[in-house]
């Protein structure tokens, strides 16, 4: 019983982190049709700016809980600067080219941002550990957890609900869905597709940066954060279906619980379990669990 609850909780904690990390990637793919390899860089930049913000915020005698807002603000600032700059300054020039060209462009962006991050923050580690102790510790049976990890589960649920409601229950969201389904028709109907692209890309960058910001208290922020995040996000997006928020949520749960099961019951399988699930999904349902219905133009 204790083992089962531990696996479930570990799986949920892992899944929440994976969802926050991957949902931005799936949103960008859904709207802009770009498989953004630089997604991990936005995560890393979010971690760095949050570490800076936490350092500044907690050096004063400010209310500790509001440090979480400082982290969110830092991620938002990074997204507002980077999102429009990269979408308008780089990506838009390649929208009419082959999809593979866009993948190569974002790969180049990944390499550039990797070095730019090092140029700005150097190679020495940054720490943002203060928020990690904000929620104390929680005992579940004999197992001790850090409360912050449960906060991350709540944050993931909150982000998922806000995104789903935003897309499905608001006028702006429905316009975005229209662009996802058919950008040419949306444009012909008077939708400002350019504006939607900038906003969607910036929200995707914000979600990646937010994931980095809220992971920062658990890690030492230093070069190399981007790579692992990209691989994991791709796995989640492939399993869930490219461009599907619901798919990303279910895929994160599958990946998180599979990893927890493997680590507790068969540690030798931990390394490949995520990719095994991905391979099985590709074999059985190549379009992923929740891939949007493909339209056929006549």
């Amino acid at each position: 019983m204790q083992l089962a609850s531990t696996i479930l909780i570990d799986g949920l904690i892992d899944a929440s982190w994976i969802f926050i990390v991957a949902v931005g990637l799936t949103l960008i793919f859904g709207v802009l049709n770009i498989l953004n390899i630089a997604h991990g860089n936005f995560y890393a930049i979010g971690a760095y700016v949050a570490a800076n913000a936490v350092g500044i915020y907690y050096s004063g005698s400010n209310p500790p809980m509001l440090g979480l807002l400082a982290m969110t603000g830092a991620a938002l600032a990074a997204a507002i600067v980077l999102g429009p700059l990269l979408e308008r300054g780089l990506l838009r020039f390649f929208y009419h080219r082959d999809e593979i060209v866009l993948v190569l462009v974002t790969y180049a962006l990944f390499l550039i941002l990797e070095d730019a991050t090092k140029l700005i923050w150097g190679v020495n580690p940054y720490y943002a550990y203060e928020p990690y102790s904000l929620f104390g510790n929680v005992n579940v049976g004999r197992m001790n957890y850090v409360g912050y990890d449960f906060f991350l589960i709540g944050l993931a649920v909150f982000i998922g609900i806000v995104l789903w409601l935003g897309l499905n229950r608001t006028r702006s969201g429905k316009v975005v869905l229209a662009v996802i389904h058919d950008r040419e028709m949306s444009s012909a109907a008077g939708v400002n597709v350019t504006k939607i692209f900038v906003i969607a890309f910036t929200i995707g960058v914000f979600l990646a940066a937010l994931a980095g910001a809220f992971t920062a208290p658990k890690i030492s922020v230093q070069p190399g954060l981007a790579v692992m995040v990209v691989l994991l996000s791709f796995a989640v997006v492939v399993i869930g279906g490219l461009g599907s928020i619901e798919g990303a949520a279910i895929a994160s749960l599958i990946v998180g619980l599979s990893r927890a099961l493997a680590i507790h019951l068969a540690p030798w399988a931990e390394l490949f379990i995520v990719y095994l699930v991905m391979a099985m999904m590709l074999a059985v349902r190549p379009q992923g669990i929740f891939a949007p219905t493909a339209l056929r133009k006549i």
Partner: protein
Amino acid sequence: MRSAFWRVLGLASCLAVANFLAPPAPAQEKDKVFKLGIVTFTSGPGAESFGTPGWNAAKRLIEAFNRGGELPAPYDKIGFGGRKVEVSVIDESGGTTKQVQELRNAFDRDNFDAIIGYISSSNCLAAAPVAEEMKKLLILFDCGTPRIFEDREYQYVFRNSSHATMDNVAIVRYLQKRKIKLATAAGINPDYAYGRDNWKDFIQSLQKVLGTKTGSELWPKFGAGQYGTEISALLQTNPSIIHTSLWGGDLQAFILQAAPRGLFKNRLVAIMAGDHVLHPLGKRMPEGVIIGARGVGGPFAKQSALNDWLVASTQKHEPGVLPSQAHYRMTQSVLGLKSAVEKAMAANGNKRPTTEQIAAALRGLEWDTPSGKIKMALGNGHQAIQANAIGVTKWDQKLNRMIVTDVEVFAAECVNPPAGIKSEDWIAQGFPGAKCD
């Protein structure tokens, strides 16, 4: 389209002709410098703890050599035997295929006289046969896997620091010496050559010496960063001791996530060669952790003129930083190369020695370093051994930093296998020939 083709062809032809007509560097000029390449992580997760400190140490040492007279004798001569040293860095990131190509380029295209490099065991295993095939001098400086010189013989490849077997054997000898009883041992190690070799050496030594049973074995990916589930699994199985060879950012993340969950309470945690996280983590590093530095360096270093120079040089350029194992291992590697080049020159009538002459001089060499005496005792004189120190972390209020206490120093011959036997067999046979008194 066709005109673009002719423009590109024309440009390429011009460049080729320009390259052909450019005067070659005069032989005399080339002879005046020793071209040394340093391969280390300047990007990625290995940069902060090992790559950058290693490169900084090499650069500062070479600068001091080129000025001359700054280090204590016998390292006070200018450059390598009077020849100035030109040093460049190559990034170790990108995987083994890239590294093999980079190594070929370094020797074939950039004409380096020697390369000192590699932190990753996988890169060491891939690069060593290439240097051997090219008949070029390669000195491995940091990677820990013992397999390099145990699986085959080399003429041109050396490792001027001990391999990781001694980290594990020294920890087990430490536990034995301190009469610590352990029922079960669990491990969390990175899933590549270094982590696998470390765990195998540790658990086999522990079973041999203390009869400890094996608990869970966890293998997170290098660079994983998230260890919540692994920590739960370790808490769930509740072993008497946890062994880890995680390093750099991974080790820091593991400690930051494990300490608040009480993993370091009521059980021992042994971190192989983990001294490099003491300074960056500061007070967040738990007390009572068994730790080493693969050698008598870092927090274990003994006072000497050479060590004083290294500490002063590091603190001058990196204020507040105490040199850790990457500084020490790079320093001893460069000092070994300098000693070998100068020995080879002396034997060659003070003329520029060939690669073969330098290799012959380095084979079986002994030299002094900030971390004590280094002896090329294994792998037919190509693999170094050195003494090793183990201690326990403790926060020092006065110094305002983490220090190591209850330190035990083990002789090189006590924690390294003798020549002619593989580490694995040496451990399995109960450490025959070990000299521990």
